[in-house]
């Protein structure tokens, strides 16, 4: 029997999350003077732009997850293992993307890459930028996960068995922080699916750009889109989680001794 306090908090959390969604749903179904219908949904889902932009954002999200993981997992591991002194610097850097307004960042990046104009119109620039924008979250998540496992002992054990750095990272460390990597991926996917400023400044048509546009011009469209985007992004996350469970990602396994 779960403790009472746990039930209370879960109920409070659930209510807070679900009531606004319900309110949005109710508005999205209002199509006329008193009627309720799905006309708003039909017109949105049939829109070519909707499908195009959603898929585009999804692709950007996947690209960002891959690039970010490839960059951050080794970095976090390395910092924790060899140069913890650098932690303060890295922490400050990791908070920086939160404070540099995306507007300023985009202008700066556009200026910097103006000598390679082809890069600016290629979606890859968004992936590069999104790795930065998601840095606070990916770093935090991976770092917390890394510190929660006994990476020193694991590393030494693996080294004593003759494993190279890559093997250690891929087959010893990564599986143990898999839950953090997954959490970081969730965050990245949702951040990318919700990032508006950078994409709109470089005139890319991503899903959030599409939503903002519909919200400013259509009466019920915003509410409808809000729910659809919520549901679809959630499905994307569930997909990742399912893949994770298929590969066998569990909670961080019990380690040898306390921290």
């Amino acid at each position, binding site marked *: 029997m779960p403790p009472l306090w746990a039930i209370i908090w879960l109920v409070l959390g659930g209510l807070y999350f679900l009531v606004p969604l319900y309110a949005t749903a109710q508005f999205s179904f209002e199509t006329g003077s008193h009627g309720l219908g799905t006309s708003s949904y039909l017109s949105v889902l049939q829109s070519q732009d909707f499908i195009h932009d959603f898929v585009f954002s999804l692709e950007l999200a996947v690209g960002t997850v891959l690039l970010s993981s490839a960059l951050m997992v080794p970095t976090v591991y390395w910092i924790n293992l060899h140069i913890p002194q650098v932690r303060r610097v890295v922490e400050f850097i990791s908070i920086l993307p939160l404070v540099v307004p995306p507007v300023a960042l985009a202008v700066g990046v556009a200026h910097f890459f103006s000598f390679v*104009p082809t890069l600016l119109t290629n979606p890859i620039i968004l992936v590069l930028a999104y790795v930065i924008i998601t840095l606070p979250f990916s770093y935090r998540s991976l770092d917390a996960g890394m510190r929660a496992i006994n990476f020193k002992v694991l590393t030494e054990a693996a080294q004593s068995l003759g494993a190279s750095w890559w093997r250690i990272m891929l087959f010893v460390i990564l599986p143990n922080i898999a839950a953090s990597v997954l959490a970081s991926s969730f965050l990245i996917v949702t951040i990318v699916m919700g990032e508006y400023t950078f994409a709109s400044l470089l005139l890319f048509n991503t899903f959030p750009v599409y939503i903002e546009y519909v919200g400013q011009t259509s009466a019920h469209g915003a509410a409808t889109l809000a729910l659809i985007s919520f549901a679809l992004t959630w499905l994307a996350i569930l997909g990742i989680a399912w893949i994770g469970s298929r590969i066998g990602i569990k909670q961080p396994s019990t380690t040898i001794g306390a921290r």
Partner: protein
Amino acid sequence: MEREELKGALSRRNFMVKATLAGVSLVGFGALSSFLEACGAAPSATTKGINWAKATSLEGRPLSELVSAAKKEGFLNVIALPPNWANYGTMISTFQKKYGIKVNSFAPDDSSAQENNALSSLRGTSKEPDAVDVGPSFAVAGKKEGLYAPYKVATWDTIPDYMKDPDSYWYGDYYGVISFGTNLKYVSNPPKDWSDLEKPEYKGKVSIDGDPRTAADAFAAVWAAALAMGGSLDDITPGIDFFAHLKKIGNLVPTDNYPANIVNGTTPIAIKWDYLNLGYKYQWNGNPPYEVTIPPSGVLGGYYCQAISAYAATPAAARLWEEFIYSDEGQIIYLAGFAHPARYEDLVRRNKIPASLAAKLPPASAYAKAQFPTLAQTAKAAAVVQAQWGPKVLGA
């Protein structure tokens, strides 16, 4: 505006290159871009000796030459043109159909500043907008920063002088006046004039289109109120005071009057450009019932300006676009979107306005008293708003 214009018919751009094939795409893009860039302007912009990128008018050539040059370029980049704003949806789709040139419409809700920024950030790329539609003070700024190329459309002389740059770097395309739109589902007795807004029955119901320090629409609303409250084109302070008063008595809802907010009753009285309010009225078609009035005691006119990008990705197409907008056909498309085209007087004089369209518009008398500020007056008023709106209205 019919809903159909929002769906399907409008093609918004798509430069979708799969990120997973980034390597291939980079090569592909490199090839395409360098092709376009290597010659400064696309080689197809030159027809029989005329380089359209440098042309400052049709220069005596028949329109058909411009059309074929534009067709060779293959596409047109436009920016900040929402389909249901002054009927741009129809403008774009008609242009596409008529000339068979694909229109890439980017960032529909960008502001004038963002449009000018895009011209410099994306210079040299294939996404460089070909033309912009900006507020007058941004048109002036853009000319100063060298973002535009001068061009006189065929119908140049019939554009009113006060609406265009003498050096032809920018030119007014349409204008509107500030109006009241009322969602009758939430307000049964719509306000008719500025002083009505202070009535207690409108508590928590009045709204403007955002922050007047940033949105031209909201800025014009404050100015129109100033005209009604004893101010003038040289004095916007009474307008600021009026809205400060509305906020204090609780009549002003401190949020933007997006269509969704109008419909859900958050901002049932929406002070906006007439072409926006009228567009909603016909789009919603009674559902909800929406009434639009032009308050007689303070009528402020505002126009937007066209300009061609100095580094247009497709210069011939850019010029063809302008010729189209300023043709009778283009100007009437604006009017069908309830935005008075720059050449309105000329069209009226030559009896070019369809009677059915004229019937849908508010009576001409409502516009007779419209006052249009000069650029100097706008700059001065903007500075006043920047300084006073925060302290007086927000209390900060």
